């Protein structure tokens, strides 16, 4: 490989112009975010279409022309910044205003890490850690883009842990039939593998200075980011002054995980942190309820359970939502319609 120079990317938005350098082979979205330019994005992995832009000059190449987010592109000049690599200097236009970067949220960067201690949590959920080459800072609730050697495309996974200057990131992944990365994660070659990482990204962040009650609605592996948020909130003693409502939905008892960890959080703030586990496909087994007497258990879809139990308690709430898209969608409807929460207090990242 020769050492090609970086190229200049010029982005005009409704509220001004930003320029930044993009390394050869680097995605335009990554280059912008790395330089503190708040380009629009949600999933950062080619599905949501939020990072679309119009190419006014220069040449780009999409690393994934068939990306599902392409359905949001209306003309040949439009592209997804999360999949596009600049071939030379480029002029782009985005149709919206760029926000100021959120204070405190660290800019992401590209680095690498080694997979440590992969472990099964359930029949189809695996947890693993990544030992990073260098520590990073992130906000609770953010996610990382991981690229597995030999498998095209990055995948987005929320950090489970929370640390300042974290040298290790923890993740949980649910096995998706036919999903190349999730199947690889369940396979024999995971341990010690070296992954490329772009982190931290995501807007569903929690900071203890928000001074609100916390509502977490999670389905399945969507609990990952909530664990980070709860860890951060507990370490800052947020629940000394504010309530926490955690709703964790899974299909059946055998799909549940992290219950001991959730119980440890709850037990620190027994009067303020309420945890409810919702089983959608099974009556609550008495043995499960007996094993976790501090939890509430309910049968039903997690957003419905949350809606029922949160009735009349939506004042001063900051809500976090993560899980399968239909569950996220139903939860957003609940929070907007029943909860009447302003969008700024509903935090979620669309990736799945």
């Amino acid at each position, binding site marked *: 490989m020769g050492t090609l120079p970086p190229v200049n990317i010029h982005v005009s938005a*409704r*509220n001004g112009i930003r320029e930044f350098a993009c390394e050869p082979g680097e995605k335009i979205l990554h280059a912008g975010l790395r330089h503190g330019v708040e380009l629009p994005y*949600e999933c950062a992995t080619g599905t949501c*279409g*939020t990072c679309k832009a119009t190419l006014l000059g220069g040449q780009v190449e999409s690393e994934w022309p068939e990306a599902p987010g392409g359905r*949001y592109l*209306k003309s040949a000049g439009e592209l997804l910044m999360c999949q596009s690599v600049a071939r030379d200097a480029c002029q782009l236009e985005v149709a*919206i*205003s760029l*926000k*100021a970067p959120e204070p405190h949220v660290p800019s992401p960067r590209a680095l690498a890490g080694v997979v440590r201690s992969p472990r099964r949590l359930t029949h189809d959920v695996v947890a693993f850690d990544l030992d990073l080459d260098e520590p990073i800072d992130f906000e609770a609730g953010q996610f990382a883009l991981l690229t597995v050697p030999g498998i095209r495309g990055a995948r987005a996974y929320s950090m489970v842990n929370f640390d300042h200057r974290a040298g290790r990131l923890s993740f949980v992944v649910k096995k998706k039939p036919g999903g190349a990365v999730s199947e690889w994660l369940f396979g024999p070659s995971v341990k010690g593998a070296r992954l490329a990482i772009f982190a931290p990204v995501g807007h569903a962040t929690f900071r203890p200075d928000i001074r609100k009650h916390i509502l977490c609605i999670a389905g399945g592996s969507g609990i990952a980011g909530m664990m980070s948020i709860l860890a951060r909130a507990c370490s800052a003693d947020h629940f000394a002054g504010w309530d926490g409502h955690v709703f964790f939905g899974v299909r059946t008892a055998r799909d549940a995980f992290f219950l001991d960890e959730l119980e440890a959080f709850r037990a620190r703030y027994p009067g303020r942190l309420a945890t409810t586990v919702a089983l959608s496909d099974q009556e609550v087994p008495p043995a499960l309820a007996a094993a976790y007497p501090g939890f509430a258990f309910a049968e039903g879809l997690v957003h419905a359970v949350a809606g029922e139990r949160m009735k009349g308690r939506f004042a001063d709430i900051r809500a976090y939502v993560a899980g399968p898209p239909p569950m996220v*969608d139903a939860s*957003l*409807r609940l929070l*907007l*319609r029943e909860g*009447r929460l*302003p*969008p*700024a207090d*509903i935090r979620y990242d669309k990736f799945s």
Partner: protein
Amino acid sequence: MGQYDCHVFVCTSGETCPTQGDTEKYVKVLRAGVQKAGKQVEVRINKTGCFSQCGHGPMIVIYPDDVWYAGVQESDLDEILTSHILGGRPVERLRYAPGVPGANKIDVEKKDLAPRDVDADAARPSSTWKRVCRVDEVAANGMKQFTVEDTDIVVVHAGEEMFAFQALCPHEAVSLAEGIHDGCVLTCLEHMWQFDLRTGAPMGEAEAGLTGYPLRREGEEVYVDLNGSATRNGA
């Protein structure tokens, strides 16, 4: 020496400013931003009456910088807040510089841009009204998309009232009928852009408004006037 580093005046009770934008909401947005930044001691946001510049609103004036902003849209507030009020850098593109001192009113028709029409609009020839559906085809408190003469519209049923807008969100062109409304605000669930149900005006994060169509109910039938569209935009 004054009491505040930055003193912001938003016209909320003049003759035209409040008709050109939801200036009461502007005040709320700015106050929330100041509070979020922890600058309540240094910054004061005041509601005020007329600046005698009617027709150039919504208008915001910031002292001691003596910077006047005209035609401020809700989507501009974030920039005014971040760049000027908190950052000290005036937003040049919004500055008001009429070139004449003192009062500078222009006659503006206080247009009701609300897309909703009332039966009183008798001047419109009846032939421009196109039938859309029966009232009960749209669930009470629901929304449904229809195509009327090649134009896609969403009909919103808000109890007593009904409204008609462009079918797709101006942001990502997804169907607004997939979103929700609460009788006051229509939210596109794709990226949480919100719109005033009565005017189509953008709210919060939304940077563009909806094109609305006059809608008329005759008994159980719903009609729209595709020629009477109005867009109340942030741009």
